[in-house]
């Protein structure tokens, strides 16, 4: 299997103490699987994504183990990770569009990047041209400055650069949030096309927009306040979720076709907990309608049926 994460725990160091951003998370991703990572802001999804590639202060590695293609990924060691970045694991960070050096032509920037991975630009050029064609970008884009490109074009360019060396795992962090509807659709479809053509093996797509995941992800992992809530195939999560948080989350999404006058949707009362001194046990219990005494213990993330995992005492352990 491609990715195996065991008990990964990451804290943020701040003046006021450690923020428990990610607590003992374990899950796995198979070959060719596109997994969506969804949750509200502050749930830890970006922390999870970035920690796999670039774990630097103020993030602190507290414990856990990550295996990529049966090889251990030394995420806590910045230098050792260098040989893995871009080649085995790659990331398209949030705001990637704005991450391109404004004073460099895109082609030059790509050349410098691949050179840092000990690959000659000339060798990679045919692959680069192939990929540009795949994302419907003209070859002339290599001679452009980022400011001359539209948002959608920049996003696609960043996608091409990140997958140039065929990484095993691609982490895409909110790649569609700043795009208009048409570009969103194009970018999402291209990501799936990349996976289909083996430009990358598996992918983690981090977003808060679950309807986008419905269009492209094979499975979805729902997170809440640094803990994993539920992981299952997309259809199961959307149509028959088991975890109370997932159920309430899906219920707050207005689909096109529903109106206020017909069916008033309700939100989830309360707020996510502050992670400076997180509540013990399941972090959703303050807002959960099913909470009972056992919830002060952290529920384990277990497999209830094939490829359907969840962490809830009521729904996943006491099966009745």
């Amino acid at each position, binding site marked *: 299997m491609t990715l195996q994460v065991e008990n990964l725990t990451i804290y943020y160091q701040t003046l006021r103490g450690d923020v428990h951003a990610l607590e003992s998370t374990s899950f796995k991703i198979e070959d060719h699987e596109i997994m969506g990572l969804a949750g509200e802001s502050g749930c830890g999804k970006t922390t999870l994504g970035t920690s796999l590639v670039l774990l630097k202060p103020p993030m602190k590695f507290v414990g856990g183990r990550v295996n990529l293609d049966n090889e251990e990924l030394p995420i806590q060691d910045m230098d050792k990770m260098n040989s893995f970045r871009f080649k085995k694991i790659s990331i398209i960070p949030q705001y990637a569009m704005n991450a391109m050096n404004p004073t460099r032509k895109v082609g030059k920037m790509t050349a410098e990047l691949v050179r840092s991975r000990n690959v000659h630009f000339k060798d990679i050029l045919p692959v680069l041209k192939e990929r540009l064609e795949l994302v419907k970008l003209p070859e002339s884009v290599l001679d452009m400055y980022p400011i001359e490109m539209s948002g959608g074009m920049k996003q696609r360019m960043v996608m091409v650069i990140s997958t140039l060396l065929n990484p095993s795992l691609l982490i895409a962090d909110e790649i569609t949030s700043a795009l*208009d*509807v*048409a570009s969103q659709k194009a970018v999402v*479809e291209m990501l799936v096309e990349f996976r289909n053509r083996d430009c990358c093996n598996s992918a983690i797509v981090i977003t808060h927009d679950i309807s986008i995941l419905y269009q492209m992800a094979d499975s979805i992992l729902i997170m809440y306040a640094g803990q994993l809530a539920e992981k299952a195939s997309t259809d199961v999560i959307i149509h028959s979720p088991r975890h109370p948080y997932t159920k*309430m989350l*899906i219920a707050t999404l207005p689909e096109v*076709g529903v109106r206020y006058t017909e069916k008033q949707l309700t939100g989830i009362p309360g707020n996510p907990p502050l992670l400076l001194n997180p509540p013990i046990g399941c972090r959703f219990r303050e807002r959960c309608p099913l909470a009972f005494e056992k919830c002060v213990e952290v529920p384990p993330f277990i497999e209830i049926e094939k490829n359907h995992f969840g962490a809830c005492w009521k729904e996943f352990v006491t099966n009745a």
Partner: protein
Amino acid sequence: MLKLNGISKIYHTGTFGGKELHAVNDVSFDIGEKEIVALIGESGSGKSTIGKMILRLVSVSSGSIEFNGVDVSKYKGAALKEYYRNVQGVFQDPFSSYNPIFKADRIFSFIKEEFFPDVSTSDWNKKLNNSLEVVGLNPEHVLNKFPHQLSGGQLQRFLIARALLLDLKILVADEIISMLDASTRIDVLNLLADLRGRGLSILFITHDLSLAHYISERAVILYGGCTMEMGDAEKIFNKPLHPYTQMLMSSVPRLDRRWDKKVNVDLKAAQTGPIHGCAYYDRCPLAFVKCKERPANVEIEKGHFVACWKVSEKNT
């Protein structure tokens, strides 16, 4: 109540301001009493600019904005202040709407100083608490705090409460929930619908079609600074007539069906510069020669206007 008559916003770019950029190009629509009108467009369509023009934060290059029959587009000073009693706005980023070094309540004290200087403190506090309760906040929990101590949803509601302290008739809500979590979005959205029930009109600016459909009666579809289609929200969503609206509806990610893989989306870079024809000409599959002339807004059925030569041709 509020009527926009052919308003435009032209920015001068290039050296010595030679080139012109039409952010908003001859837009007209109106907002009646007790209704929520959704202004829908992607980024760069000019919808935020229209919102800011209505709020008089950006000047109007041409055209007029009539509020209860009076043109407010050139108002300044005391007249403008009176206008602000009736028309207020809430913006997209809750955290940037507050001065980070001061407490969040400061926005209320500004209102008191400028609009209610003679009201006694106890009366003011009663009014304030009332306003907070209407938006669903507990005064004890949210007063006397700094912006970073409150959540995005609470901050947005604070801003709505501030607007309600005045004699509000129209609220311009510019993407107010796009930065909120899924679980708080619905609450703020329901609040807006609630306020409409109490007599308020709302201009709901958004790029999210499902949200617009959830809450609004009428919708205006904007592209490249021009209106494409406007009318009853239900009609536009279920039977879009303009090719742009149709493309929009098919590209929106939905939870009840997957995308139609056969529909191919063209991705040319956005148009800039003066627009003399239809704004959607470059990307429209139905474009023909007549489209080089700006299409007129034709009433296809009662209350449903479409600006497209092909569509009006088919229907006459």
